[in-house]
């Protein structure tokens, strides 16, 4: 399945916003630590990504992610 970076970015931002941070704070360079997004939130983000794009992100994948951009780039690369 081919998805664009913009599509993934929109979905990731929507999902992260549902965990609490203001949507305006969720930029590519924002770190999950700054946004107060914790490991449980990332597990749920991975579930959304799997449901929507068929991309399976494992625990070790998620541990490497520091910024919103890291997550978007990984998802796009795997979905491509």
């Amino acid at each position, binding site marked *: 399945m081919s998805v664009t970076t913009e599509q993934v970015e929109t979905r990731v931002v929507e999902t992260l916003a549902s965990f609490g941070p203001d949507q305006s704070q969720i930029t590519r360079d924002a770190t999950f630590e700054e946004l107060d997004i914790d490991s*449980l939130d990332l*597990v*749920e983000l991975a*579930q*959304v990504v799997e449901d929507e794009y068929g991309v399976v992100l494992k625990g070790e994948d998620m541990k490497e992610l520091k910024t919103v951009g890291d997550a978007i780039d990984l998802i796009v690369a795997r979905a491509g």
Partner: protein
Amino acid sequence: MAEPPAQGCALVTGASRGIGAAIARALAGDGWPVGVNYRAGREAAEAVVAEIEAAGGRAVAVEGDVADHSTPDGLFQAVEAHFGCPVLALVNNAGITDDDLTPTLTDQAWDAVIETDLNAAFRLMRRALKPMMRARFGRIVNVSSVVGLRANPGQANYAAAKAGLIALTRTAAVEVARRGITVNAVAPGWIDTDMTAGVSTELLSQVPARRAGTPHEVAACVRFLASAEASYVTGAVLSVDGGLAA
């Protein structure tokens, strides 16, 4: 028939008889559509389903040995497809015993009990939690045992599994608490079921209530823990044992 506490269904493992069957009936009475899991007792499971339906509830019998690693996906898919909603209440009730004193307990008996009574519960919880997180609601109740809290000679494998189940319950509970998901355990004592049918009744003298409990008395506690009213109870172990562990 009561309204279910969430837009989801319930899955009870090992529900063709005994405590599991009582739990399935109780949850159905609270409005939950219930998946009645069984391993070998198809007729008994279908009888539980028929009883629930006769009382105005909804239920389906679903076959699967929880000790099989592929069972969780199959069970969840079968129940979710039948009712058209996610499993938002999971009761890990399926369990076996294979008793012997520790010096002579075989690897096979150890492994079989740990696999069914502990490992399977973990795999089912793992499968259940992600949809519950998305739904911001979930109820998991693990059926442990007084033996997980208090020694009983001849049951080292069963005790280790049931104590492990309590630790698993508490850990998962704190991990997912802020998603509206509760994870609790009940710890039944001596309950009149097929599992206790061959055990000497002399042990009843140790029970402060001086009688065995009934599957219904355990089911009533599970029913509460699965209800909307129990929303602030998580990581708890509710003893249902006539005072045996007190």
